[in-house]
């Protein structure tokens, strides 16, 4: 199945791309994507501790199962607004 994966902020910089299509096996979860990214760029695993993932605009866990056409995103810690 195909899913779209989006990268923002520090992830976008680290991976040098803002999104991509991934062809995943049936039964794949968010963790499948994380593992695949880690193979390409081992340092990204350090960020997993503070990062969230979303599936179709909703926060997800690594065990969230994916289906064809899902939109997945890596969500670094959010810092909208301001420091007040």
């Amino acid at each position, binding site marked *: 199945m195909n899913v779209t994966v989006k990268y923002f*902020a520090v992830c976008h*910089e680290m991976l040098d791309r803002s999104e991509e299509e991934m062809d995943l096996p049936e039964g794949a979860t968010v963790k499948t994507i994380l593992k695949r990214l880690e193979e390409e760029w081992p340092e990204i695993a350090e960020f997993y501790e503070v990062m969230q993932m979303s599936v179709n605009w*909703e926060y*997800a866990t690594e065990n969230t199962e994916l289906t064809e056409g899902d939109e997945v*995103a890596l969500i670094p810690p959010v810092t*909208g607004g*301001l420091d*007040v």
Partner: protein
Amino acid sequence: MYKITTEVITGAEVREAVEGPDAGAVVLFFGTVRNNTDGRPVRCLEYEAYPPMAEKKMAEIAQEISEKWGLDRVAMIHRVGKLEIGEVSVAVAVASPHRKDGFEACKYAMDRLKQIVPIWKREIWADGEAEWVKPDAVFFDAPKPHKIDPQTD
């Protein structure tokens, strides 16, 4: 109104979105770009967002406010792109019959915005360096961060 924009925020857009004859108060909040962070001079800021999810999460915050205070007119707008010192990055408006609830709900909206709305800030320092801001606080409401199982090797 729950919106990510590249346009200048004036405040009129959020105020007009919430005002009405039953409101005794409209509380407006603006976040503006500060010229320093902990004393280090800032040249400008860049904001990036995940717009569809950000707008969805803003709508969820408005729903929370509806449940907590019974206030149904809340507007939030956040600008993305490069912002100069003094410009408005975010505006929140809450209309309420009385000011107390309006102030409380407006503060709540900003607190939640920083917790769950996917928007990121990059500081461009006066010396030319730049970095993505990492918050001190961790999410208290979003699912726990996931961790890849430690490699055995």
